[in-house]
């Protein structure tokens, strides 16, 4: 079953590169996404057996990330088909600078999308740390062409930064994996396998200085990919220049996968009794990310960049939650789900706004509710959800993390955390609400667009609304298990 989850998108991705018919290729995209989604749901009823000597297995953490990726991809695939149909014409004029550019081949874009899904699935189910590394690097390579879909100098700049910064970061993570292998070497030369569970069981016998050094390298390496400050510099550029389909997947699915790389290491460190050391690092980088995000959201004039910095903030919150330990870890796991659904929805809606208003500037957009009632409503809903207002899921998970901090007497952390969340809420409220309300500068007649461009974000919105009021017992159980792995 796990192998099928991997082979399905990988095979479809390779086929997509060579399919000449647009219609066939688009159906292939939606079909693969649906089959992958169905398989992921099945894993909730039948626990898949580990394969390849325990290298590939789905534990609670992996299941969360895998299912989340699959759900997002399912919704995004419908959006992508409608989007690609609109983008079919030969020449496009740039919104910002007015020059003419062309798009990348649709076949490569679809192929890379599917390979990206395969790579992310592999990240989620890898139990062997070196294999996990291979998978994370593969996600970078599969997603870089997605950012360079519109062939112009800004997207090229974003792609280059993404490729180089993430590759260098991930090279450091490989050094971290090697350091961990050194830590697992006994004086007599025998080694423990690099499978997470074996390492956790032997964690007490690992060489402590090497484990600590390995954790730092892995935190910096995967943290670069996850968008933790100060290594986040690629993130706003890539998210603002990529087509919204890709931005939604980068922010909603890819960042979680990178975080999973850190969590696997944390799992080993916690088992080895190194939690005080790792928790402190996670707290520092988490709070720093939230602070950097707050600074750049204040006065931000580009709404896609605003959403990107909001992702930096939420990645910081995830790190803080795990760093606090205890009940906050459960909050973090829940937060991952809520953030992914909400942020992916917001990026898809931002794509709809961009297509009609033809500008990414917050000041150039007004009256979305009047011009695009449905997208406008989703935008407002998304804004309230992402800033942590009740009754949405993010409110619950942010609150759980805050409660975790207070329960442990980490009052200072709680105060900084709460004030940063409040500052970001205030900073986003101005532009986000002004965009939704009022009347557009000049009258806009929205073009007739495919219904899929609205249903895809609406599907995600259902999740956002649902998890605010009801969490299915099966999900609670898996969240508990995930939190247990990290405590």
């Amino acid at each position, binding site marked *: 079953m796990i192998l099928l989850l991997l082979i399905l998108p990988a095979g479809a991705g390779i086929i997509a590169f060579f399919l000449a018919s647009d219609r066939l290729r688009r159906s292939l995209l939606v079909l693969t996404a649906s089959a992958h989604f169905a398989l992921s749901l099945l894993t909730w009823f039948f626990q898949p057996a580990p394969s390849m000597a325990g290298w590939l297995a789905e534990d609670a953490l992996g299941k969360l990330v895998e299912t989340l990726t699959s759900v997002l991809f399912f919704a995004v695939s419908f959006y992508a088909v409608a989007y690609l149909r609109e983008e079919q014409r030969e020449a496009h004029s740039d919104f910002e600078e007015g020059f003419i550019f062309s798009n990348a081949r649709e076949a490569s874009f679809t192929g890379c999308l599917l390979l990206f899904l395969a790579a992310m699935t592999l990240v989620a189910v890898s139990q062997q740390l070196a294999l996990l590394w291979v998978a994370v690097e593969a996600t970078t390579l599969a997603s870089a062409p997605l950012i360079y879909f519109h062939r112009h100098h800004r997207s090229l*700049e974003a792609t280059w930064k993404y490729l180089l910064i993430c590759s260098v970061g991930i090279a450091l993570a490989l050094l971290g994996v090697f350091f961990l292998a050194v830590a697992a*070497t006994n004086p007599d030369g025998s080694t423990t396998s690099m499978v997470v569970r074996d390492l956790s069981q032997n964690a007490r016998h690992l060489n402590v200085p090497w484990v600590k050094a390995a954790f730092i390298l892995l935190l910096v390496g995967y943290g670069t990919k996850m968008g933790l400050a100060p290594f986040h510099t690629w993130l706003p550029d890539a998210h603002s220049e990529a087509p919204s389909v890709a931005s939604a997947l980068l922010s909603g699915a890819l960042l979680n996968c990178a975080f999973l790389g850190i969590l696997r290491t944390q799992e080993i460190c916690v088992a080895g009794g190194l939690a005080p050391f790792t928790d402190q690092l996670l707290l520092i980088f988490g709070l720093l990310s939230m602070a950097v995000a707050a600074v750049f959201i204040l006065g931000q004039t580009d709404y896609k960049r605003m959403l990107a910095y909001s992702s930096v903030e939420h990645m910081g919150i995830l790190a803080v939650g795990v760093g606090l330990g205890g009940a906050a870890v459960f909050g973090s796991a829940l937060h991952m789900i809520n953030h992914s659904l909400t942020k992916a929805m917001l990026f898809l809606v931002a794509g709809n706004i961009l297509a009609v208003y033809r500008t990414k500037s917050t000041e150039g957009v007004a009256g979305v509710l009047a011009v695009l009632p449905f997208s406008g409503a989703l935008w407002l809903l998304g804004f309230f959800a992402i800033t942590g207002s009740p009754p949405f899921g993010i409110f619950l998970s942010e609150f759980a993390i805050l409660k975790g901090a207070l329960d442990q007497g980490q009052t200072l952390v709680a105060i900084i955390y709460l004030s940063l969340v409040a500052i970001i809420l205030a900073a986003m409220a101005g532009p986000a609400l002004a965009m939704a309300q009022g009347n557009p500068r000049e009258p806009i007649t929205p073009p007739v667009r495919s219904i899929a461009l609205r249903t895809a974000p609406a599907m995600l919105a259902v999740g956002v609304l649902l998890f605010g009021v009801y969490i299915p017992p099966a999900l609670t159980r898996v969240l508990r298990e995930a939190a247990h792995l990290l405590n």
Partner: protein
Amino acid sequence: MAQVINSTLVLLVLSGFTLLGSSRLAACIRAVAFQGMLLGLLAICLQGANVTMTGLLLAVTTAAVKSVLLPWLLLRAMREAEAVREVEPLISFNVSIIAGAAVLILSLWLGQRLQLPSQPPSSLLVPAALFTCLTGMIVIVSRRKALTQVMGYLALENGVYTFGAAVALRLPVLVELGILLDVFVGVFVMGIAIFHISREFDHIDTDKLVALTDHLS
């Protein structure tokens, strides 16, 4: 055998200095290619008497990819980009070399501090690996050309690989191949990006890639 290993490591360090001090792109590419060959030799020597067929094949494949295939890709990117064949660093070559010397001292010091659980075959192994990683980082941050930055990335990757060899890491073949494939595809994709950069901007200087910043009100 220890002598061969030691001389290989000294050559690795020297190739790092070549990378830092050469003004011609082609010379830098050759330095990185030479490093790839040294890595293959090192991997075979470190296996010593208990060399296996798979180990041998892996070492040869790695050397072939890193010293032939990737440099060929880089040379092709250089020709297609019709780049000025000079490195154009942001800091002068003298400063680069001095930085290299400082990094060498740092690596030697770190190598003494980091005690491996089992005695490595050569005390130079860990310092040479760290030095190669750090030269790669220097090149990435101090060079203007996209192509040179890719070489820095390759040197960083070579350093990481040397470290893996130094601690006699027995990774499964599949994973070794996966890592190699990732590096190869990575450089391949970067090569394509360089081609597009040169077409878009008529040059491959990354200090012109400055359109994307935050415009805060």
